[in-house]
């Protein structure tokens, strides 16, 4: 039986937690506000007692897969363990119950947390300037491309195009478009890396920037990153690192040394803040020295042993967030780096790379890798062999769910047929990698012996395959829509 909706659980006059009675003389809303600006009656929200609300959400919660249960190998999502200490620190009243407009004098602890994280991240990235105002990775991209426009405009010509490899995440081209630049796509060569010949052909005086994910979404390090930087910089353009795959680099590789002018970090990936069912993320943007004046306002500065926000930033692109960014994520990330320290940070990427290569080695007997050779922290398999047996990547992904594990990212990057993109992260042990490999090998056997079994999957999950076409055709987006259809979608 599916879990009812809150509306279906509602019983007239049932109440949750209550307030104390009003302790000031009551005027009454009718005397305080004009009647034509008042709502007629209470909003149509449910009326449910606290225990029933708690049961409802607990019953819903157990329908989710999550990293505390088992492997969650979504490629480029970096689903690593989220240490519990991080959450505990973020919930301290002195860090959670503080207002963004209380005076800087009374916020020095919060500012010190931000300031210290900035120092750690600048050291890790090998870059001199930073902002933590963007709310997520995609907003870092937007911030950087707006800064790119401001930078070029200050030199007399904002330029017209931003180059994006064909293996890039969708946020790259959509960001470029949102900032009013034209997207120029460069193809990957047979080795999975940016085709330098094509790149040279596309780069010109019109090029404002190149957005590069390195290692790229195939899990391959762009070996020619130095040459790419040279080509881009010779044209006077800027080089952006999409940090989606930063988990391959921490303590190992330096984005600053690779010549990146911008580099973004997703705190919810590399720095272990919880993904929360799809946010909140935490965005960090590091930039080279001469781009610093364009950073969003305000920027954090230190004066002696005090921190302050500097709002006097005439060349800034302006503000991208209501206040100072996702502070709660900043607290968690600082807790994470302090727990690991220099030694632990150096281990993160080494173990992530080891785990990915081990898993790849175990799986390539049954699944075709997109590219031979060692990978970085993730790799892409193609279900092309299985497709020949009538089973597609989506079927394999659904069958994995039956074993209590999560599926890899599917059908991305777009340049690999029937892609399964796998990122185990450093969290997984050899035993859990072996267990995941056994599941994929079992499924491969099933594609030979009983392909229908795979195509029928999942059968062990709370619901079976859902009709997505129907959801899009017959939009049912609220309780109200559901009721209009008699309660059954």
């Amino acid at each position, binding site marked *: 039986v599916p879990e009812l909706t809150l509306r279906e659980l509602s019983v007239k006059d049932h109440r949750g937690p209550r307030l104390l009675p009003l302790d000031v003389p009551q005027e009454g809303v009718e005397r305080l506000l004009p009647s*034509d600006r008042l709502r007629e009656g209470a909003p149509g929200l449910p009326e449910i007692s606290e225990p029933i609300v708690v049961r409802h959400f607990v019953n819903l919660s157990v329908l989710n897969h*999550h990293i505390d249960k088992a492997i969650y190998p979504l490629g480029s999502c970096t689903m690593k363990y989220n240490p519990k200490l991080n959450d505990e620190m973020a919930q301290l009243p002195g860090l959670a119950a503080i207002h963004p407009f209380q005076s800087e004098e009374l916020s020095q602890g919060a500012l010190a947390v931000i300031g210290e994280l900035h120092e750690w991240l600048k050291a890790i990235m090998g870059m001199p300037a930073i902002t933590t105002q963007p709310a997520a990775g995609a907003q870092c991209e937007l911030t950087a491309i707006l800064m790119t426009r401001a930078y070029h405009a200050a030199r007399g010509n904002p330029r017209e195009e931003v180059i994006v490899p064909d293996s890039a995440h969708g946020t790259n081209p959509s960001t470029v478009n949102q900032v009013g630049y034209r997207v120029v796509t460069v193809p990957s060569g047979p080795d999975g890396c940016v085709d330098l010949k094509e790149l040279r052909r596309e780069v010109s005086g019109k090029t404002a920037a190149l957005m590069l994910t390195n290692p790229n979404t195939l899990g391959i390090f762009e070996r020619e990153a130095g040459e790419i930087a040279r080509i881009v910089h010779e044209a006077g353009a800027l080089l952006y690192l999409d940090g989606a795959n930063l988990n391959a680099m921490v303590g190992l590789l330096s984005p600053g040394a690779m010549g990146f002018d911008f580099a973004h970090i997703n705190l919810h990936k590399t720095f272990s803040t919880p993904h929360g069912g799809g946010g909140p993320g935490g965005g960090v943007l590091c930039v080279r020295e001469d781009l610093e004046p364009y950073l969003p306002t305000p920027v954090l500065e230190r004066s002696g042993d005090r921190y302050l926000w500097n709002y006097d930033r005439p060349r800034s692109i302006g503000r991208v967030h209501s206040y100072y960014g996702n502070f709660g994520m900043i607290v968690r990330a600082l807790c994470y780096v302090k727990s690991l320290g220099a030694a632990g940070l150096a281990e993160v990427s080494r173990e992530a790379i080891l785990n990915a290569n081990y898993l790849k080695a175990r799986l390539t007997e049954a699944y075709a890798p997109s590219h031979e050779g060692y990978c970085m922290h993730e790799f892409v398999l193609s279900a092309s062999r299985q497709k020949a047996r009538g089973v597609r990547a989506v079927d394999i992904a659904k069958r994995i769910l039956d074993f209590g594990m999560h599926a890899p990212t599917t059908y991305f990057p777009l340049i690999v047929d029937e892609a399964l993109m796998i990122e185990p992260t450093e969290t997984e042990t050899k035993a859990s990698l072996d267990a995941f490999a056994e599941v994929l090998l079992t499924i491969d056997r099933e594609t030979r012996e009983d392909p229908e079994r795979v195509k029928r999957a999942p059968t062990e999950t709370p619901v079976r395959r859902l009709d997505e076409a129907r959801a899009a055709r017959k939009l049912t*987006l609220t309780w109200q829509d559901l009721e209009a259809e008699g309660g059954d979608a």
Partner: protein
Amino acid sequence: MLQRIGAPSLEALWEAIPSEFRVRGSLPVDPPLAEYEIARRFAQWAESNADAQHYACFLGAGIYDHFIPAALRALLSRSEFATAYTPYQPEVSQGTLQTIFEYQSMICELTGMEVANASLYDGATACAEAAHLAVGATGRRIVLVSEGVHPHYREVVRTYAAAGSFEVRDVPLERGQTPVLALQRMLAPEVAAFLWAQPNFEGIVEDGAALTEATHAAGAYSIAVADPVALAVLKPPGKDGADIVVGEGQPLGVPMGYGGPLVGFFSVRKSDVRRLPGRLAGATVDLDGRRGFVLTLQTREQHIRRERATSNICTNQGLMALANTIHMALLGAQGMREVALQSMEKAHYLARRAAQVPGVSLANGEAPYFREFVLRLPGPAADFLRAAEKRRILAGVPLERFARARSSELLVAATEKRTCEELDRYVEVLADWARRPARAPVEEAACRS
């Protein structure tokens, strides 16, 4: 493991990477700390901030100190919600998907709209995305913004507009309200949308119906940025005819958290559903005909549509939207209304009493307000704030932050959590200070601990 990989050493896995890209030696950062040392360090930082458990907080301006039930915190900390990701595999994500669906439903109940998305980063970016939607829908390029919209939201709208897709023009306030006549004069045929706030930044309840009527007469979109607590009492902008209703969800169960993470809600009419930015959950059925939920209309989004997507946003603010959902479920229709009414009564009690202090007045006179108001003081607001801090009161947001000329004005908010004793203490401190308002120099503010 290396044997299985066939690599001679761990380093061999990345030996093809040029050595000049490598980090040399160890990172110039501190050694690791044990859990208990980290806890001690963070406790020190926490104690050097003034928090709402040790100070009576009258700060608002978009972020409010409302009651958050214990059951909400307990549910929100469950790994099943907190450590899951975007529900790409709906068969093992029904918990997340159904809660998004319930969130969308409740946002529509509050705003009076037909469709809400799964949330955006915050109230400011929700305004920017709404302006972007209206520009795309109308093909026009000017967005009028009331100065009653939060100054930071207006800045973010300008940042997003800077790419050249639209131009922003401000509509000034008169006595704290957006003047309909002035708006009508500015509503040229090239205007795509008018963005207004309910209640506005100075706490005033706007005449949403009149503003929307004027906007529609010019063929532009009426976009309201609304406070979700106020919407339990105020007429929803959707009923005023607004085309897009957005806002900041923090007051619904999200800690103030020094201003983040927040959560922006975004709601429209069905006719604009294909222009929505961000994630959207919908109901459907599984192979056995059982009800279930999926992400739908994904062809609007960047991972499918790439450069032709409606927005570049990838994640929503999932866990914060869940906090909103649980909060509204726990408080329910009556609890939400009670929070709104008590906040309003307390704000009015405080305003009435504060305005009786000699030299102190309400800057916006008789204009109707909800749980926030502007006090005009007989001296620098910054000076009064420091005096109040010594009595463990965070007395308001100085408007000098946003307009240099308004150095004697203070934006003051009250929520249901402020007790009568705290309200009276506020007035007492104000009266003490108002007798000698220009007293200077001011000593350092007292920090807790």
